[in-house]
């Protein structure tokens, strides 16, 4: 809800208040090295892989769900990619997407067919995927020195991961706003029983949302592994929360039926800049973890309080 009595346009709110992106970037410009080409590349790279996950998370949240498993799926995608690399780049990418898709289908099946609370279902899938990945790699990272693969992790002048993210975001934006399937996803999230009565195939749409989220997390894992040259079974611990924070900042809610890709992108850039600035001024990683926790707490508390105000 925007403070309409202040007559602020949604765009101003989006850029200055929730989140305070422009003030943050102004602060960033004062810091030595923030605007350097090298740093902006690092920023674009981290936004690229996270952003692909954010798209999936936003779609799942629009349909009224949540996906805690994306971090573990990201790690599994990276490990799958490096493992399949001897067979070529394309099989590696397809493999990463496919293992992510399997995890997404599991999520979707548990949520829609077994009627399990999405948080619990995806938490269980998260643990299963993490366990399977750790078992498969014997808890050690898998390394690749394939030139072609490492090249995909780079890209000039913009990192490939960032360009792929932009393409995925534009597609998702069009599908969500201008295609029947996207409108159905919003309807299912906003009012599930009414959507079912209108003849929408609620279970199928929700399962497809989880499938998309899984595939995207797998592909993000592929790109991250290409950037690092390593498929690590333990990365992605904070991914789900970062992605959820970006989606929540962008207007998605835990109740479903709301949210947009454009908003999530602003949220993503905000979090990306915040972490980047913290790295530049040598803030230890513990404080970054703390900050994400604080942002998330502030977001859910404000969502809860606004909901309560609206009900009164």
């Amino acid at each position, binding site marked *: 809800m925007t403070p309409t009595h202040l007559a602020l346009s949604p765009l101003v709110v989006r850029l200055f208040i929730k989140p305070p992106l422009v003030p943050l970037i102004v602060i960033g410009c004062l810091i030595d090295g923030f605007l350097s080409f090298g740093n902006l590349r690092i920023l674009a790279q981290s936004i690229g892989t996270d952003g692909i996950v954010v798209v999936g998370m936003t779609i799942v949240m629009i349909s009224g769900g949540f996906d805690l498993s994306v971090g573990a799926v990201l790690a599994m995608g990276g490990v799958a990619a490096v493992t399949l690399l001897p067979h070529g780049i394309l099989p590696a990418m397809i493999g990463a997407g496919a293992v992510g898709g399997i995890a997404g289908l599991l999520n979707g099946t548990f949520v829609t067919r077994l009627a399990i609370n999405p948080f619990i279902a995806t938490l269980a899938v998260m*643990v*299963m995927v*993490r366990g399977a990945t750790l078992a498969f790699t014997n808890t050690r990272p898998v390394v690749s020195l394939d030139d072609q693969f490492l090249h995909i992790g780079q890209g000039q002048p913009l990192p490939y991961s960032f360009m792929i993210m932009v393409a995925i975001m534009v597609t998702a934006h069009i599908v969500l706003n201008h295609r029947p399937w996207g409108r159905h996803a919003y309807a299912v999230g906003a009012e599930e029983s009414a959507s079912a009565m209108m003849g929408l195939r609620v279970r199928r749409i929700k399962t497809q949302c989880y499938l998309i989220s899984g595939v995207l997390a797998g592909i993000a894992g592929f790109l991250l592994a290409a950037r690092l040259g390593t498929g690590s079974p333990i990365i992605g611990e904070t991914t789900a*929360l970062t992605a*959820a924070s970006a989606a929540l900042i962008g207007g998605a809610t835990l109740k479903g039926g709301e949210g947009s890709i454009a908003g999530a992108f602003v949220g993503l850039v905000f979090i990306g800049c915040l972490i980047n600035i913290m790295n530049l001024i040598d803030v230890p990683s513990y404080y970054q973890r703390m900050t994400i*926790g604080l942002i998330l707490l502030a977001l*859910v508390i404000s*969502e809860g309080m606004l909901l309560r105000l609206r009900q009164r």
Partner: protein
Amino acid sequence: MHIDRSTALQRLNPLINLVTPIWVVLAVLVIVVALFFDRFLSPQNIVSILQQGVITGVVALGMTIVLIGGQFDLSTGAIVVMAAVVAVIVGPSTGTGTFLAIVLPILLGSAVGAMNGLAVFWAGANSIVATIGMQFLLMGVVLASVSGQHVRADNISAIFTGLAQSQFLGIPVSVIVFGSVALVLAIVMNNTVFGRHIYAVGGNIETARRAGIDVTQIGVATFMLSGALAALSGVMIASLVGHVSPTSIAHYEFPALTAVVLGGTSLAGGVGQPTDTVAAILVLAVISNVLTLLDYQYPIQLLVQGVVLIVAVAYYAWQGAKV
């Protein structure tokens, strides 16, 4: 006469409720495993199963209460770590030190619980996301305050070490602590107004509010209880190992949640028994022990836990749908 007998039965509720599906599962599991593994029933192995189980078990008991109240508490894993670190930093070498090393973490744990409870019941935040946020915040604070380093205490007093390591009549003290906590909670949940109010809040929060229950107060109390018990578990870990590496302590919230759900506590709230959580903890400890005897490492254990959680949730959902 009839009424008298039924109230007498109700007073015995905790005992009658002992015979639930999960206890049957436990009994069958123990018999089957004992038939296959000779080592399983050896006193040392049983003591090690119990010692392993109770640390998760104390966390799970607190989460049971929160879940009966209709909410989730996933911050417990971080509270365990915080409590263990604080206990070691306080330095349980002298008498006062030992007292503080036990009491201070528990007070801090309930303070964190109170913050969770206020965020959820006063501000109306989604409990899963809010407590995960709290988990990150708290882990960040703990790691920052010790700079991610290992903490160690010197000259730990015998009383503090005894909390987890000594035995009384052949039973580890930690098991006795766990048993008493479970017993007290079973009585509180079934035989006190406070306990009934928690079931009411979890069953239907709006009805409970209209019936005049101070929902916020009850809700915050459940989270404080969960925070305090998670902290107690952290103190037990500190007592067991004497030194703490904050990054190497496992995420206790997940096995604890698995146990709570396996014990039949409803994810929607309003249904559940602390005693059933005890059975579920023992089932998980036996499974984990069998996997260890078969030489399966942590990843497989993680995988099995995820499967157990899904099967348990699906089973109870199916049971609920049948009624």
